[in-house]
């Protein structure tokens, strides 16, 4: 058996940071190969080198045993390598079929685009994948899951034999994950090589035959998945034993901090009422699209709502004013770190102190390093790893970026912290740290609302669980009542 794709002793540095050092592995035809590691372990860099975005500093890539040099993504595509990103990048105003045929459109004899063949090709590809998407509809409005399937169809249309999937399931619901896996298995069985990157171990064991583990830019091991338990994988990823992923501390539940009554927003959520007390962690569970983030963004004020009341520390909040919510003692760690949580181009210290810059100014002026001191203190408390505080926050790994977002809000000394998918896309080690932090904050009397799509996280961390389904509250469960089944049933509308 000869490998479709071989990575041989590859290294890549960005400035002083060695992102990947001497990594080697091979993808065989007909295998699904998992690539795992903590955030910052170098997985994304590997993906970008295979996609032709970055060039390795040293080492070689071999396709079908022959050495290749990619000068750009087009070369990687020509070599039969296709990458499916977590968030696909389709042209929203073009039709699905046009997206699939992009750069490779079938032509009529008059050198016009042959729409009929193009649509027929798309239909044929979808039939092969066993999914139903109308090829003539515009890509705008497709769910992320459907967009990924379109990307896969596009990869197939360009005869890709190596499919690299970079955390494709992060934004998918359970049913969508199952469908994606069915498609992926079919491709694998047809002889394609799949490289699958995920933080969810149950997905790796369900889909992959072999796993390559990376740590700190280095290759740890490549072994059959069946030979490793989840504990083994975690231990090799972090290089140490994990005490517990969900260290829930006992907290004294205090006064009601937040009371939401009858909150409505047309077409998004309706009749939302719940309370959060000091020292309590309340989880908002539900499927993607159930309206959890939307509810909390309306409570915080970055979105508007039509009717209902939000009472915070005994005072009614006016809607649509995040500045007033902040001043009253509310913080929101948003779902989308890159777009909402951080300003990637700005430095770490500017990001940490952004909501606080008014409070840090003396006579309206920011002189004398008050921002730097504050940022240094909070990044230290959260054990954030970085080069210098003046580095752009975009240079940090996902986990450390999340710590910067947390630092930014903890610095405002909130009474209520809303965390939306606090551990999405961050590594196991940092995940446990974030959980420990939330737990200890609650123990010190902070009220926490956590939106999470990860059931183990919801069950492990929450004192109370509010389950949303299609924009309304389907169930409120105590910690004792909650099981994976009871939450899932409520979320999916079965009983």
């Amino acid at each position: 058996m000869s490998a479709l794709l071989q990575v041989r002793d590859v290294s890549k540095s960005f400035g002083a940071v060695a992102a990947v050092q001497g990594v080697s592995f091979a993808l065989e035809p007909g295998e699904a190969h998992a690539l795992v590691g903590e955030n910052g372990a170098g997985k994304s860099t590997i993906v970008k080198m295979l996609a032709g975005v970055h060039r390795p500093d040293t080492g070689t890539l071999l396709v079908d045993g022959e050495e290749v040099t990619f000068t750009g993504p087009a070369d990687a595509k020509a070599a039969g390598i296709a990458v499916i990103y977590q968030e696909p990048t389709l042209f929203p105003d073009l039709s699905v079929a046009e997206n699939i045929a992009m750069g490779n459109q079938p032509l009529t004899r008059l050198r016009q685009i042959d729409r009929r063949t193009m649509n027929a090709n798309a239909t044929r590809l979808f039939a092969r994948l066993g999914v139903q998407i109308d090829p003539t509809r515009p890509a705008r409005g497709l769910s992320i899951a459907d967009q990924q399937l379109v990307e896969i169809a596009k990869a197939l249309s360009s005869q890709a034999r190596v499919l690299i999937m970079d955390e494709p399931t992060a934004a998918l619901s359970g049913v969508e994950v199952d469908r994606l896996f069915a498609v992926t298995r079919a491709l694998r069985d047809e002889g394609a090589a799949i490289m699958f990157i995920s933080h969810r171990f149950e997905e790796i064991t369900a889909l992959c035959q072999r796993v390559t583990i990376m740590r700190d830019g280095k290759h740890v091991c490549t072994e059959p998945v069946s030979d490793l338990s989840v504990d083994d994988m975690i231990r090799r990823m972090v290089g140490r034993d994990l005490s517990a992923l969900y260290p829930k501390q006992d907290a004294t539940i205090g006064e009601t901090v937040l009371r939401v009554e009858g909150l409505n927003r047309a077409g998004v959520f309706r009749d939302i009422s719940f309370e959060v007390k000091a020292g309590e962690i309340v989880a908002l569970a539900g499927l993607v699209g159930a309206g959890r983030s939307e509810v909390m963004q309306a409570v915080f004020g970055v979105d508007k709502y039509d009717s209902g009341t939000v009472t915070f520390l005994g005072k009614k909040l006016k809607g649509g004013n995040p500045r007033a919510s902040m001043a009253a003692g509310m913080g929101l760690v948003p779902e989308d770190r890159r777009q909402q949580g951080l300003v990637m181009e700005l430095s770490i210290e500017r990001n940490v102190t952004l909501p606080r810059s008014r409070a840090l100014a003396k006579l309206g002026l920011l002189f004398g390093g008050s921002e730097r001191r504050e940022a240094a203190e909070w990044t230290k408390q959260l054990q954030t790893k970085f080069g210098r505080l003046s580095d752009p926050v975009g240079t940090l790994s996902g986990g450390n970026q999340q710590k910067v977002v947390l630092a930014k809000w903890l610095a405002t000394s909130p009474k209520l912290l809303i965390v939306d998918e606090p551990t999405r896309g961050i590594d196991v080690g940092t995940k446990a740290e974030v959980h420990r932090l939330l737990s200890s904050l609650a123990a010190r009397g902070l009220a926490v609302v956590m939106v999470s799509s990860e059931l183990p996280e919801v069950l492990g961390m929450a004192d109370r669980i509010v389950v949303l389904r299609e924009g309304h509250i389907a169930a409120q469960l105590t910690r004792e009542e909650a099981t994976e089944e009871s939450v899932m049933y409520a979320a999916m509308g079965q009983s």
Partner: protein
Amino acid sequence: MSDASVSPRSFRGGLGKLASWDGIIILLTVVVIVAASLGVPNFGTSRNFTFLILDLMPIVLVALPMTLIIVTGEIDLSVASILGLASSLMGWFWNNGLSIETIIPLVIVIGAVLGAINGFLVNALGLPSLAVTIGTLALYRGLAFVVLGDGAVADFPFDYTGWVTGTIGGGSVPNVLIPIVALAIVFGIVLHATPFGRSLYAIGANDQAAHFAGIRVARTKFWLYVASGAVAALVGILWTLRYSSARADNGSGLELAVVAAVLLGGVSIFGGKGNLPGVLAGVVLLAALQNALRLQDVSGQALNIVTGTLLVLSVLLPNIVSSIRTSRQRRKLRQAATS
């Protein structure tokens, strides 16, 4: 004397810092001024210095609020038309018997209102600033001609026209350097040392994240347009007094020189990056170059060619510099790996 401070390593570090864009521009500005002083007759004279400052006055003043606007990722192309309308109004008010002491504050307030209209269209209605201010560029200039027609008003009191063209104590430092320095300090502090300034960078780099951090994005940008309008009107007044001539076409085309200077100074047209010292250097570079060429009897068209070329280079060069840097780094790593 310590030798450590001139070790090769720290030397390279110093070069690395200078190799940033504003470093290059500041260096280039110094080079141009020194070369012109040596090579161009009359460039280094104190009389020419006075004219140089008077010539760059409109660009540098309008560039101050423009820098803040471009840092937020927006643009205001109507500034030269506000300048022209302010000049027209000044002449019209003067003809109608208002005193100059009434006219000056009145025109500045009208400028602020014109800026507020831009700000309202861009921020309350969410229209793209490029389109809005191209529209008001035509609209405000049109109004300027409605107000004053093709004529000119020239009989402004000498106390004022003389002050604008005069120098401090009769020396070589022109009086207008006082408002230039004062406003540059004010805008510099606002941009670089206030929470408001911090929020401008956040808005320019990612307005959604800024909104999530409690920054009032639309309101913040609205006030920048108001400031831009007020400053443009002030420059309209100074311009009118300098030439003792209120005309509807005063300052036409100035917006391009201003945007060129701001971009040349290292401000990113996409927002989120740039600083005021770089912009000031950009203005001085542009003005010194034009001044030197004009002393050499180079024609106006050729001056436009220089401005245009500099603008293209200012966008092109930072990219080339950074790609050279990365490729050099890669080569070094390869050598290190093979040896």
